[in-house]
């Protein structure tokens, strides 16, 4: 489904701020994989997701989505394959536009946008149902501006937008990190449900070790721009946070340094 071959990315090359963010990264995702991604600050997790999304072109290597080489494809074109949810709830939605307008924008991802109406009345019924399933009361607020919603509500809407038009790959970058624990749990269970129902392939970066273990069928650990640990199936299910920290110490030779993870 997704294949990263020797992907390398250096920021600010040739300057004192030079930073090799991804180093010969290789990753193969199978159809239906739900992979959780952990790693210390600056390990390259977000950079990997950005490379897949096409925010910039990698210096070296190849990226294939469902067999299509997208390495040189610009971000907005690549979007037809991808659903994305970001850490900051502000980033995933257009605050000045209505809930239904945001959803209508998302449903047209990957399609030509012409001079037909931006939202048809038949769509509204569908949106109402989908919003009702979120259980946040948003089905009565179709024409509310998204900017009026809470962070958790916005993340839920963003998640809906990312999956409304079934993506080949769902990219979640710490999408519950900015939420309070109760809200985070709610958005997380919603994530599980959608991925399960739609049989999505997903990459989820999280700083929460327990979430990384509990969710998904596979876990990868990143360090200094590469994957140092990749575990799935039964083995993954039996993991504990202690195991993970231990493995990290052995494989990287350093302590696991993620200020947010340590808070948990």
């Amino acid at each position, binding site marked *: 489904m997704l294949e990263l071959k020797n992907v390398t990315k250096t920021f600010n090359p040739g300057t004192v701020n030079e930073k090799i963010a991804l180093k010969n990264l290789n990753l193969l995702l199978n159809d239906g994989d739900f992979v959780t991604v952990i790693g210390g600050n600056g390990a390259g997790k977000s950079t990997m997701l950005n490379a897949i*999304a096409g925010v910039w072109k990698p210096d070296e290597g190849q990226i294939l989505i469902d067999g299509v080489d997208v390495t040189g494809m610009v*971000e*907005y*074109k690549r*979007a*037809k394959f*991808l659903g*994305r949810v*970001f850490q900051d*709830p*502000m*980033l*995933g*939605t*257009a*605050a*000045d*536009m209505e809930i239904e*307008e945001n959803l*209508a*924008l*998302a449903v*047209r*991802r*990957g*399609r030509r*946008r*012409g*001079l*037909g*109406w*931006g*939202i048809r009345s038949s769509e509204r019924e569908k949106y109402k149902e989908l919003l009702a399933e979120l259980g*946040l*009361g948003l089905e009565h607020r179709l024409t509310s501006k998204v900017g009026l*919603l*809470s*962070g*958790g*509500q916005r*993340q*839920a809407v963003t998640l809906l*937008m990312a999956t409304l038009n079934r993506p080949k790959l769902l990219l979640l970058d710490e999408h519950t990190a*900015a*939420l*309070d624990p*109760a*809200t985070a749990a*709610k*958005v997380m269970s919603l994530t599980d449900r959608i991925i399960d129902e739609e049989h999505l392939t997903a990459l989820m970066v999280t700083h929460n070790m327990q979430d990384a273990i509990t969710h998904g069928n596979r876990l990868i650990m990143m360090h200094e721009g590469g994957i140092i640990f990749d575990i799935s199936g039964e083995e993954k299910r039996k993991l504990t946070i202690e195991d993970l920290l231990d493995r990290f110490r052995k494989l990287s030779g350093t302590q696991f340094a993620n200020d947010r993870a340590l808070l948990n």
Partner: protein
Amino acid sequence: MGGWLNALPGAVAQGMIWGIMAIGVYITYKILDIADLTVDGSMCTGAAVCTMLMLSGVNVWLAVLVAILAGMLAGLLTGIFHTFMGIPAILAGILTQLILWSVNLKIMGKSNQSLPARSFDVLVTQLKQWETLLILVAFCAVLIAVLYWFFGTELGSSVRATGCNIGMSRAQGINTDFNKILGLMISNGIVALSGALLAQYQGAADISMGRGAIVTGLAAVIIGEAVFSKVLRNFALRLTGVVLGGVIYYIVYQTVIYLGFDTDLLKMLSAIVVAFFLAVPYWNKKYFVKPKKKGDGGNAGA
């Protein structure tokens, strides 16, 4: 008082012409979130193109149409500077504005050209105030209707999204560069239209007629929002508010002149008033809104 009243229809007409211009500013400043300074040049481009075509015997409607296209071309140039060449939007607009200064001079052949309403079949003129007002109302109505339709379409919605959240737009597969260029073209086409109308109304095109247009446009947008935003929430009505903002601006302007205010100082006065109003939302945020407690992002039960 009689003099003031006599000047009123003229002030309203000019206010509406500037209101049309302000709709162009609204599209870039409010919808695309770009402060586009191209308008200072494209206003005159519209006037110059329309005037020269009419002087050479072209029908007024065709002349206006070509003026609009010329304005769109100016927007295209700014758009290319900004997206393809990566130049910050403000600077891109200033560059085009400077280019247009030369271009406008070349179009007119000298720094001004008169277009006497007695000899030409103009749409709007000081000589026929009431007809002119009717025609301007019709122009505004059609323009607002077309824009209302366009920004409701799939493409138009994606332009609004581009201005609102560019990262999200790309993630949703929207060609944001194309949309910015498109928005700049529409905006400058409208600004050129107002330039073409102003030249007809004043009976002349002048190289400096667009100088500071952005400030006047912003003033109209701000006044329109300040006075009408509570009542006019719908998009079409908000655009109407912008036109009315232009009218209010011009009535105040005319009144200030009537009261004998030193006209040399008028541009300064407008700029200061606009600066003050631009600061209001910033001050509001900084001094009057209690900072939200951190971590209550899910307060609405999510």
